[in-house]
């Protein structure tokens, strides 16, 4: 039975407690909405697939020492030969970068040679015909590079590639009608067209920060073996051989040429480690926000239990009177639940406004997206539920107050 008017009348006479509970609910809602939003955003990013088969993949970073920085072509070739001959290796490739590495190349691309502005932004990967197989990308149209299409090039003097392989995201961006295969595009300021000979289902860019969010699946691969002294080797292990390769592969590289530096920190990593490192901040932030949310909800619930218990204690006599006047246990229970619901509704209304305000402020301060209404709604329902749950125990205690309390003097 709802008895809103008299409850409101009673609340008016307990302003402090009412305001305190409403404030707690409002603040919790505002923080929890934004925190859950941050968690969701971060997790969404963490769950993005790279497009590669990430198991059995090893990444090694190497820099030759004492060689001209752009003249390391033969050394890289020797490395690749050594790596591909290793017993546990299925395939290997030397690239400028790979998804989630954190650093790489990016450029604008055009479909019209005379266009002033680029049509899309994309990352550039450079690798030979082993790139697709090593990364285990899913080719959904066209073909892989042939070995005769691969050119060796100084990173400071890159040729315009005749053929390229692009990710589906980039292909769709450049040719929205889905006709990208066989068409051409212009990389950077180039006046020479590059023909799209293959489209892979997905290939993520090397970055995972907010700045690359707008083009995180726009990638193209150029059939180029860079001659730079700094190289990233991607190695696909035969099933079950990855653990051995973590030691064997860098050893083979050092054996091939010891005048090199493989950094002791993050120089040799399985792709699982690459992924973990790349998303450490995102996951940590999600965990932090999650913990904050839980503790916050716990504290708010405890606060409601505390204040409601106090109210019940303060009103034992009047509960007894109500019982004497014919209130059933359920009436008393619903009185306190309704009371909390009313306070809760006031709290969530303020809280929703606060949440949106807080989000708008965060948007101006940080690269954050707008809060969607769904989060606020979920938060509203959750907090009203929390309030009811927290009120239940003290309200049950209230309903057990005997009507005989009415005859007792204080």
């Amino acid at each position, binding site marked *: 039975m709802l*008895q809103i008017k008299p409850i409101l*009348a009673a609340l008016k*006479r307990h302003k402090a407690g009412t305001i305190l509970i409403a404030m707690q609910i409002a603040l919790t809602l505002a923080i929890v909405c934004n925190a859950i939003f941050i968690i969701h955003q971060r997790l969404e990013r963490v769950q993005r697939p790279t497009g590669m088969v990430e198991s059995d993949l090893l990444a090694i970073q190497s820099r030759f020492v004492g060689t001209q920085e752009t003249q390391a072509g033969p050394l890289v070739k020797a490395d690749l030969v050594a790596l591909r001959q290793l017993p546990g290796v299925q395939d290997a490739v030397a690239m400028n970068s790979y998804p989630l590495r954190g650093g790489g190349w990016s450029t604008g691309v055009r479909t019209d040679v005379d266009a002033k502005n680029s049509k899309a932004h994309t990352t550039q990967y450079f690798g030979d015909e082993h790139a697709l197989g090593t990364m285990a990308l899913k080719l959904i149209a066209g073909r892989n590079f042939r070995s005769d299409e691969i050119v060796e090039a100084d990173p400071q003097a890159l040729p315009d590639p005749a053929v390229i392989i692009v990710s589906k995201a980039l292909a769709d961006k450049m040719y929205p009608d889905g006709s990208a295969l066989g068409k051409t595009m212009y990389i950077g300021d180039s006046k020479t067209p590059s023909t799209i000979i293959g489209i892979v289902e997905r290939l993520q860019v090397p970055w995972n920060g907010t700045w690359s969010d707008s083009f995180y699946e726009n990638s193209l691969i150029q059939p180029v073996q860079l001659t730079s002294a700094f190289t990233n080797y991607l190695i696909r292990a035969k099933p079950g051989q990855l653990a051995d390769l973590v030691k064997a592969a860098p050893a083979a590289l050092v054996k091939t040429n010891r005048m090199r530096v493989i950094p002791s920190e993050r120089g040799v990593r399985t792709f699982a480690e690459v992924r973990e490192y790349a998303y450490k901040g995102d996951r940590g932030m999600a965990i932090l926000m999650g913990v904050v949310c839980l503790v916050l909800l716990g504290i708010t619930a405890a606060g409601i239990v505390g204040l409601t218990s106090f109210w019940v204690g303060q009103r034992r006599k009047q509960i007894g*009177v109500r*019982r004497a006047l*014919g*209130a*059933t246990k359920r009436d008393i229970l619903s009185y306190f639940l309704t009371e909390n619901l009313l306070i809760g509704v006031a709290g969530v209304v303020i809280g929703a406004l606060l949440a949106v305000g807080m989000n708008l402020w965060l948007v101006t301060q940080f690269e954050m997206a707008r809060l969607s209404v769904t989060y606020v709604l979920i938060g509203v329902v959750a907090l009203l539920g929390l309030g009811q749950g927290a009120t239940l125990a003290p309200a049950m205690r209230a309903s057990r107050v005997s*009507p*005989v309390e009415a005859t007792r003097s204080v």
Partner: protein
Amino acid sequence: MLKMTHLSKVYRTEVVETYALRDFNINVNEGEFVAVTGPSGSGKTTFLTIAGLLETFTGGQYHLDGVEVSNLNDNERSKIRNEKIGFIFQAFNLIPDLNVFDNVEVPLRYRGMKAPERKERIMNALERVGLASRAKHYPAELSGGQQQRVAIARALAGSPRLLLADEPTGNLDTQMARGVMELLEEIHREGATIVMVTHDPELAARAQRNVHIIDGQVVDLAEDPRFHQAVHAARANSPA
């Protein structure tokens, strides 16, 4: 209307059993105004709480308006309290958070009555006790006598068959007490059954019938000279 036979109420602690009421027998007829007297601790308040279904009893039988109440569950008891019984407490027991109107409304709310009917009954009851103009006041803004009249209005609003009053004038000065007493008498004349617990012999004398409780049992008044003396003394002192 109210009939208790061989009723007993035992309070048990770990060490002792205390009989608050023992082989208690009483019969109150419809339309009677009965005053229950007795020294402190005699069990008169226990009697009232059991009569009002505020508490359960240990043994015996209690028929209220022809219904044996010992087997009723909590909800059924609440319903009877709400519909058949009106309470008037010594300490008024108005709810301080609610104004006069809302206080009188409380039992009607629990009866699930529609708003227009509630309002009519509340205003009638308040007019009856002469406080219709104070409907928006809070209890703290009223004198003790006024508060008790609000409590009576609350008891009357539901048109109960039985009115239970526990020392209704105990917290009031003589002047106010007289007003409250006159109100009760008027209500009685209009046909309500009233059972009033009091330790004041003068008040008791104004009832139709007196029941005296000592040590949890009803005693025959005619056989207790102490009581007659007290009544005489009270009448002698009273200017009325």
